[in-house]
């Protein structure tokens, strides 16, 4: 089941030292495609060790300020490490995004 994590001041976590990759899904109560998008993400990341990811779901109906802050207005949108994709994502695309987020972090750490 979906355990919803509240968005915290975790910009540091997204771009900072931590090796955890944050996946953020923006959804709304009225969005017909959002439940499927959430399913795809959960199925894609379940093959990995749970500690690799932090999966946050932001419900824009309850928290429109978060969508405004990130400039997200089409839903569902998945954001991983500074890039995003709109619509129900394909698992391959999610994996690509996860990989590039990892590479980005490694590079960032080496500098």
């Amino acid at each position, binding site marked *: 089941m979906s355990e919803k994590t509240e968005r915290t001041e975790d910009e540091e976590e997204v771009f900072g030292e931590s090796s955890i990759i944050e996946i953020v899904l923006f959804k709304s109560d009225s969005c017909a495609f959002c439940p499927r998008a959430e399913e795809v993400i959960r199925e894609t990341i379940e093959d990995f060790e749970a500690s690799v990811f932090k999966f946050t779901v932001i419900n824009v109906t309850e928290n429109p300020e978060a969508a405004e802050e990130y400039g997200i207005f089409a839903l569902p949108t998945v954001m991983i490490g*500074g890039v995003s994709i709109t619509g129900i994502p394909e698992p391959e695309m999610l994996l690509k995004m996860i990989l590039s987020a990892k590479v980005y972090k490694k590079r960032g750490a080496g500098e």
Partner: protein
Amino acid sequence: MSDYTIERVKTGIPGLDELIEGGFPRGDTILVAGKAGTGKSILATQFLYKGATLYNEAGVLVTLEEPPRLIRRNMLRFGMDLAKLEQSGRLAIVDLSPSKEATPVTIGEYPSFDLSGLEAIILNHVKKLGAKRVVIDTLSIMAYKFRSRDILREEFFKLCAAITRAGCTLLLTSEIPAQDTGLGVFDIEAFLASGVIVLYNEKISDTSRSRSIEVLKLRGSKHSSRIHSMRITDEGIRVWPGEISPGH
């Protein structure tokens, strides 16, 4: 003729109300179309500024293109202090411009999305301010942000309906591409709106241009069918209802 009269929202553009039976029909969606540099954003922002300062109607300006700091700066030239209105809760500028740093880089799109996020963002401000006027500037940018035109068309209809259902009069701006003869990049702009206003800045000689305004349609109103002179003055946009544009 029936005695039924449509409630009018004063536009705050001197001279324009006279062309359209006193103002925009309340709760309608009005499209302001024009090529680059014709004054669409000024007209739309003036509609909100005057609404808040003269007619006690709070407004929400959703900017999809220009960053708020530039809008505030540009409007100050016409003596319109938007920051002051924002501070007093009579105006909200919703920054959805591409210049926002927190916005992630979009790397793709699947044709399975809606604009319920945008709707939630706008209605949140409408509710907070008790707003009666909403401007989306500019619709055209969506064509560059998203590829799935069919979805966008459908979603625009839903979005406009949701905003006007909340009791607001909605102004959409649409940029007409330079060589284009239509009303914008989607070809449906005119259907979205119950009123269409077109702004021109036509070359009338080798050395001069002339600004003008045309009310192309306004449902439920007897409007002028001529093209009228318009100027951008130190106090914003002004229309001369008695003057027919020399460019046409």
